């Protein structure tokens, strides 16, 4: 695959972060990020943001009786 420029790398940002690219494309983007500090900074920011959002949204306390309520719902049948 030919060397990737900033525009081509940026087009693949979401798919790169979500590992939706072919292995060849993944390598090409990685190679570009090793050479381009600006793009590397952008990609790192986006990756960190997704990680932080996932971590934040995962911290939802479950009701202690949730499972029992699910099972009780089955008793209505």
């Amino acid at each position, binding site marked *: 695959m030919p060397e990737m420029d900033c525009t081509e790398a940026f087009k693949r940002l979401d798919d790169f972060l979500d590992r939706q690219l072919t292995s060849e494309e993944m390598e090409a983007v990685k190679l570009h990020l090793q050479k381009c500090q600006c793009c590397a900074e952008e990609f790192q920011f986006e990756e*960190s943001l997704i990680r*932080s959002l*996932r971590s934040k*949204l*995962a911290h939802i306390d479950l*009701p202690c009786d949730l499972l029992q309520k699910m*099972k009780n*719902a089955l008793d209505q*049948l």
Partner: protein
Amino acid sequence: MADRDEFENLIEMVAGTAYRVAWNLTKNSDDAVDLVQDATIQAYKGFDSFVKGTNFKAWFLKILTNRYLKLRARKSAELSSLDEVGDVFLYQQAKRSGLLGNPDDPARIVMDGLELNEVRAALNRLPEEFRLTAVMYFLNDFSYEQIADVLEVPVGTVRSRLHRGRKLLQRALWDVAVERGIVVGGANA
């Protein structure tokens, strides 16, 4: 009737995820529990159609999402003022605000300053189709294909909704961060 013991073993494994997804869809705990209970009943009724060995969590969330869509009161889209948002919006705003010179992770500076309810408020500002996709994306380790299966849309639709949803969410998060005084605002998309 389906094997109840087997079904109960399976729902034990998905209860947490189901509740978190339901909580983000319905926007409050009581409605989330109601939705999870309703989905549990529907899933049990249809348990004979579940193919053993396939992904029960995805199957259950598909039922839960469909029940939500069926039961919810329709609301108009909330995000007309956020229609046009540039790429990597939050990054660009952080750059303009000088956050990128900070030795700490700038994305975390923004996110750590926001309470869970504020992140949810930002998520809730997304139009429904983007919000549903974003909830599935951020709360699960699902691939695009699995999200497409749960939401019953093509993979390409998941990809485009996620791309757009991320941009909209970044704009909404930034607005909340500015309102909270976590960052200094003023720059526009």
